[in-house]
């Protein structure tokens, strides 16, 4: 299985709908400070079901919706969609037959989220179920946020024990 595309619309600094296409091997996301690179990483965590605002550097859920600039008004909703190539059948269960799997999350400014898998409405736990067993998830070690690695090393033995227990 590999990630084909990310579509971001209205999430954090991505006011205009944006698409990133990926190769199956190594991609780099580059650009100046503050241009939105970490926002892309957080968009991936968010659509996979991240429910903690703090984990996304925000105070409350709706803070991830584009909040406007000097020149643009805030938006009322945002969405992120991930498209996966599943032709090797990594994602099993009910979606094993699909060679392409898309997962989408949309949030409105009241903080309510709607999820969809292959365009059919789903719940957050359905999305998490899709990826169970693949190692992918908002809180898995498949997404390593800015500063996490350094924190792991300096945090101390109890902290590291907890992290390993959680991963096990």
């Amino acid at each position, binding site marked *: 299985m590999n990630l084909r595309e990310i579509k971001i619309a209205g999430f954090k600094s*991505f006011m205009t709908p944006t698409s990133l296409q990926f190769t199956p091997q*190594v991609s*780099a996301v580059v650009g100046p400070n503050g241009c939105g690179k*970490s926002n*892309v990483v957080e968009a991936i965590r968010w659509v996979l079901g991240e429910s903690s605002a703090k984990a996304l550097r925000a105070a409350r859920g709706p803070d991830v919706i584009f909040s406007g600039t000097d020149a643009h008004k805030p938006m009322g909703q945002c969405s992120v969609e991930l498209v996966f190539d599943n032709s090797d059948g*990594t994602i099993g269960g009910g979606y094993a037959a699909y060679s392409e799997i898309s997962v989408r999350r949309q949030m409105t400014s009241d903080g309510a989220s709607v999820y969809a898998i292959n365009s059919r409405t789903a719940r957050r736990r359905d999305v998490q179920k899709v990826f169970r067993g693949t190692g992918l998830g908002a809180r898995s*070690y498949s997404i390593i946020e800015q500063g996490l690695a350094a924190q792991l090393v300096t945090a101390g033995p109890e902290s590291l024990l907890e992290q390993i227990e959680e991963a096990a």
Partner: protein
Amino acid sequence: ARRRFDVAFARIRQEFTAKFRLLFDGGEADLVHQENGVRIEAVPPGKNTRALSLLSGGEKSLVAIALVLAIFELNPAPLCVMDEVDAALDESNSLNFSRLIVEMSRQVQFVLVTHNKVVMEAAELLHGVTMREPGVSRVVGINLQQADELLQQQSG
């Protein structure tokens, strides 16, 4: 659950030592399960300081990378996204890091957020994120030379 932890811990420990030695071109490293938790031991090649705290900023970074990738290998996903884990690495350590990524990319798809030119060179595809208009992000597919210009824009 106790059994599952032991299996996981043994696996992570083995992976950690292996990745450490790849990233540091040698040296010794281990994870020690003690009463108060899991302690990291790491000694870069030729040095003998056992205390992790005495290591340099870049060395701690490299130890951290070995550790997160070791935990990753426990439940290896088809995709791994890393956000600027290489920020404190010098050129030589960046090269070791990118070599390890290229090696792992035979089974894992990587998306690396980075400012590091050595790491960019390991990528097949570069996504340039820009903010020509303040506060509004846009993305464009770019090559290495354009990445250079992108990172130099807004200078001067």
